[in-house]
């Protein structure tokens, strides 16, 4: 386990390093210098000002030096300045993290409490009407764009309640905030629950065909005991893996949903930074997202190794 952990950790650092290079190069090989774009966006005309901007951003230095400056800044927690508020980007991002974290947590919670049991039911009742209905529902969950689902939820609020949830003023009590956030979380979580449900179903079907399930049935274990104690326990491992993949999926849902509901979170900040053409901040934010996704994947892998006694990584 120890060597596996170290190997996996090194791999994670290598991956993050690679991603940082990809993002960095991607935003530099594009047609149009960042200084030109910022220059146009800021409406400046003086070419001396442009040169000043270029040296401020370090764009006159070789690309390798620029990269090192950026990365060492990131390591110190220096994400650069945003051009709109002229604040350190970190100060803009930090207060937004808890909002997005709560939203993502709630969405994942919804996804699991609906996705896993419905997936089990669908597998146990394979090829019944119920199974067909659940499969169509989960497939539609993967087909509805989450921003549209968000808009439909807003529409239902307007139509039936006459008000729209507002997120710019944070409620004082945590519970109130969570209740309010559970509305957009439902929009994000629906898609995630559909994915979890599909995976739970196929994972359960796989397990239900195993010999030990027949043995459990033969010795007279109850249906519930067979389905939940024997089958689900073994089916749950692939489901944990999907939560790692889900982390990446959730980010996409969060970006659009925070935009629809006007929630001041990190994901919407990325869209705002892109709209302002604030590329230094975009670069740092994308890196931040990559770190979160890669870390979640790492934790999932570790959980997998710990939870499944059949897997030994030492040899």
């Amino acid at each position, binding site marked *: 386990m120890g060597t596996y952990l170290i190997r996996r950790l090194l791999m994670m650092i290598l991956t993050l390093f690679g991603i940082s290079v990809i993002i960095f190069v991607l935003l530099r090989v594009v047609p149009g210098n960042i200084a030109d774009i910022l220059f146009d966006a800021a409406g400046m005309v003086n070419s001396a000002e442009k040169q000043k901007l270029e040296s401020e951003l370090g764009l006159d230095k070789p690309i390798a030096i620029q990269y090192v400056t950026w990365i060492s800044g990131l390591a110190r927690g220096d994400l650069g300045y945003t051009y709109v508020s002229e604040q350190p980007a970190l100060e803009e991002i930090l207060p937004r993290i808890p909002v997005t974290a709560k939203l993502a947590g709630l969405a994942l919670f919804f996804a699991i409490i609906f996705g896993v049991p419905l997936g089990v039911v669908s597998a146990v009742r394979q090829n019944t009407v119920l199974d067909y209905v659940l499969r169509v529902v989960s497939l539609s969950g993967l087909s509805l764009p989450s921003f549209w689902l968000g808009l439909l939820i807003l529409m239902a609020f307007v139509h039936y309640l006459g008000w729209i949830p507002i997120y710019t003023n944070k409620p004082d009590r945590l519970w109130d905030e969570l209740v309010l956030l559970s509305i957009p979380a439902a929009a994000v979580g629906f898609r995630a629950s559909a994915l979890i449900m599909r995976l739970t179903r196929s994972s359960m079907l796989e397990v239900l065909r195993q010999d030990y399930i027949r043995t459990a049935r033969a010795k007279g274990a109850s249906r519930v005991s067979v389905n939940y104690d024997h089958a689900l326990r073994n089916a749950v491992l692939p489901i944990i893996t999907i939560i790692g993949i889900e982390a990446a999926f959730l980010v996409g849902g969060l*970006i659009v949903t925070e935009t629809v509901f006007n929630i001041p979170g990190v994901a919407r900040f990325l869209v705002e930074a892109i709209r302002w053409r604030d590329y230094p901040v975009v670069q740092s934010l994308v890196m931040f997202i990559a770190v979160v996704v890669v870390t979640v994947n790492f934790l999932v892998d570790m959980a997998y190794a710990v939870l499944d006694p059949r897997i030994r990584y030492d040899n």
Partner: protein
Amino acid sequence: MASIDHQAELNRAGAQAGGFWGSLAYLIRRYPLGAAGAVIMIAILLMAIFAGWITTFDPTTTNSRASLAPPGGIHPLGADFMGRDMWSRIVYGARISLAVGIGATTLGCLFGVLIGLMSGYFGGWLDLIVQRFMDMMQSLPLLVMALVMSAALGPSISNTIIAISIPLVPTVARVIRSNTLMLREMPYVEASRAVGMNEVSIALRHVLPNTLAPLIVLGTAQLGSAILVEAALSFLGLGIPEPHPSWGRMLSESAAEYVRTAPWLVIYPGVAISLAVFGTNLLGDALRDIFDPRLRH
């Protein structure tokens, strides 16, 4: 004693399905959901091709008198703020959605196949480097990658296609690589080598055609996500630029406001996106069952 109804069993297995129509009837009976998906996709495709025939208004012509006209009369699905007919915009939107979806999927599959084939067939250090690189690309969420790409390239239809195709490459490359690893050990590959065929020709003529089935399955699944990502990008104002009628774009910016005042502007484009993606997903599931029976549940 149980008796077997031979005729019924043969019918069920499709053994006597004669010709094209017979096979088709069998497939529809065997995969009703997939058939429904195919019907939806064909309908959307026809809508895109014959857009000019089934609409009366130009999708980009504005008309201040029709601004926010509710559904009914000459505007069956209403009109938007600029008085553009929603039905026309939705019908012509199918062109954009399919063009971007199919374009991005084709491009992504093309590069994915090339990379996967090379990486799997030739192996060695090339394979190692390529695989690590694909790992890295896959660590970035699809939408984030597409967002950054399209922001970097600037908004246009062709740039949107490129931006969406790149994050699709690693998934395709993975699947093609693992297939190639299996195929290159096949006796017929050995045989081709024995008769002196060169490696590149073997890879292209004997390995590549055999990866077609998983590619079709994967491509259909990718088409659904490509359409969704295009909608999301355009919704965020970074995909298809105005005045092109993109379903995602129609929901952008002021959509939250129209939720109150003009719900038809919010409902119809969303229905169009969902139907298109639902159709590809249904079709994709059925194709997976047909081509990859190991995954059939």
